[in-house]
C-alpha cells in the first residue's frame, strides 16, 4: 500500500530530515513509526501527503508514484484516499461536531444524501452519536480526537496517517483512541502512526519502525518501543 524507495529529504537550511529511507507497508498493516522529536516522523507523514517533495527517491501510495501526481487533480485524489489525524485535532471551533465531519465530505463535493447518511454513522462508531450538535470546545480532549478520527475516516480512506494522535491525551483516553485505531485497521485500513508513546507501542505489539536522525535503525514486526 505504501512504498518508500530510498527517500532522502534535505530542507533548504540543509537540515537532513530523512536519509535513504526505504520502507514497504502492505495493505491492511498497522505500523508504528517511533523515535525522538526531530527524527523525521512528521516529515515522513508530510511526504506521504505530498505536502513536501522528497529530495531523492520515490514514494508509492496505492500503486501510484507521488512524484507524478498533478497538483490540480492527482494530489487531491491522493488525499481523498488518506485519512489524517494530528496531535492538535485541527477541528473548526465555529462548526458543530456534525458539521466538522460533514465538512470533509462537503468540500470534496459529496452529495447531501451521502453526508446525512455517513456522518451520523461514523460518529456513532466513535461513540459520539449523542454529541453531534455540540461544539468542539464543549468536548474533552479524547472526544475531540475521536471527532478528528471520524473526520479522517468518513470518506473511507485506504490509508490512515496518525501523527502523535495521543500526544495531548492522558493514558486512559489514549487507550480509547488506540482501540478505535485498531478498529479502523481491522476493517482493512492501512494505519501508520507516528508516536513516542512507549506504553502504547508496547501494549499493542505491532510492527515498529524506529527512526533516528532520519535513518531507519530498526524495523521489527510485533515490536516494542525500544
Amino acid at each position, binding site marked *: 500500500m505504501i512504498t518508500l524507495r530510498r527517500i532522502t529529504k534535505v530542507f533548504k537550511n540543509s537540515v537532513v530530515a530523512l536519509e535513504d529511507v526505504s520502507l514497504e507497508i502492505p495493505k491492511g498493516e498497522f505500523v508504528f513509526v517511533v523515535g525522538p522529536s526531530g527524527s523525521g516522523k512528521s516529515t515522513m507523514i508530510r511526504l506521504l501527503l505530498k505536502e513536501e517533495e522528497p529530495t531523492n527517491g520515490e514514494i508509492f501510495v496505492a500503486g501510484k508514484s507521488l512524484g507524478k501526481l498533478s497538483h490540480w487533480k492527482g494530489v487531491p485524489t491522493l488525499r481523498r484516499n488518506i485519512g489524517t489525524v494530528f496531535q492538535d485535532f485541527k477541528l*473548526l471551533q465555529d462548526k458543530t461536531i456534525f458539521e466538522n465531519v460533514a465538512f470533509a465530505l*462537503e468540500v*470534496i463535493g459529496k452529495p447531501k444524501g451521502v453526508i446525512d447518511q455517513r456522518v451520523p454513522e461514523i460518529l456513532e462508531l466513535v461513540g459520539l452519536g449523542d454529541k453531534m450538535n455540540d461544539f468542539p470546545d464543549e468536548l474533552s480532549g479524547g472526544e475531540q480526537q475521536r471527532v478528528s478520527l471520524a473526520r479522517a475516516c468518513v470518506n473511507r480512506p485506504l490509508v490512515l496517517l496518525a501523527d502523535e494522535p495521543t500526544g495531548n491525551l492522558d493514558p486512559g483516553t489514549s487507550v480509547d483512541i488506540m482501540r478505535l485505531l485498531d478498529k479502523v485497521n481491522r476493517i482493512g485500513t492501512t494505519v501508520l502512526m507516528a508516536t513516542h508513546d512507549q506504553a502504547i507501542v508496547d501494549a499493542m505489539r505491532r510492527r515498529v519502525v524506529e527512526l533516528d536522525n532520519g535513518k531507519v535503525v530498526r524495523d521489527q514486526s510485533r515490536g516494542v518501543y525500544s
Partner: protein
Amino acid sequence: MRRIDYYFRETFTGLRRNGLVAFAAIATAFITLLLFGGALLIYREYTLIREATTGNVQVAVYLTDSASGDAVRLLTETLQDLPIVESVDYESKQEAYARFQRLFANQPALVNNVTPDALPASLRVSLSEPEKFAQVAAALGCRLDDTGEYQCAKPGILALRDHRETLQRLFQVIKVLSLAVLAAAGLMLVSAIALIANTIRVGLFARRKEIAIMRLVGATNWRIRIPFLIEALVESLVGAATAVVLMFMGKVLFIDQLRNQVGFLPLIQNRDVLFVVPWLLAVAALVAIVASVFGMRRFLDV
C-alpha cells in the same frame, strides 16, 4: 446545484466577515469604473461634436443653389486631381438635411425651424495631409479676404471651410481631458486590483485553518479558490453597477439640463451610456480575475 449553493454561501460569509475591507475594495472599483466610463463618454461626446460640425471631413466646399451639374463635376475633378485629396463626396441638400436631423434628434425645436432648402449642398473632401489645406484653396482659386472668409473664383462655390482649423483647439482640449481621465482611471485600476487582492488575502488568512483542512481532505484547488474568485467578482461588479447607476444619474441630472442651454451641440444620450455598460462590466471582471491571481498567488498551491 448543491455545489453552486456552497460557493455562494462561502462567498457571502467571506464578504460579511471582512466588511470594511470589502467596502474599500468596492468603493475603489466604483471610482475606477466611473472614471473609465467617464473617459469613454467624453470620447463619445468628442466624436459626436466632430461629426456634427464636420461630418467627419476636413474640408467642405459649399455650393451655390444655382451651381450647374457641369460646374459641380468640374470642381470635383479639380479636387480629385490634387495628390493630397483622398476622397470627394457630393452631399445633396436632402442628404445634408438628413444628417442635420440625425445629429439634432434631441432638439426638435432646432430641426423644425430648418427646411431642407436652407442647407446648401456641398462637396465633402478628406485630405491625406490635412495641413496642406492651402493647396485646396489655391486649386479652387480661393483667397482669404479681410473678414477671414474665402472668396473663390471658380463658379458654383458658395463658401469654403477648413474644419480642421476651426475645431482643432476644441478637439485638443477634449482629447487631453479624455486622456487625463483615462490616465486617472488607469491609476485607480491598479489600486482597485491591489485592494481586491488584499480582501482576498485577508479572507485567506481568516480562513487559513479551514483551507488547511480542505487541502488535507483532498479538496481541489478550484474548490478552494472559487469562493474567493466569486468574492472578488461580486466586489468589482457591485462597484461597476454603482458606477453605471451614477453615470445614468449624471446624464439625467447634468447633461439633460445642459441640453436646453447648448441646443446647438449634439449631446450624449441614454444609448451612449448604455453602450459603455458592457465595457465597464468587462473591465470589472478583468479587475476581479487579475486581483484573484495576485491575491492567491504563492498562497494556495495544494
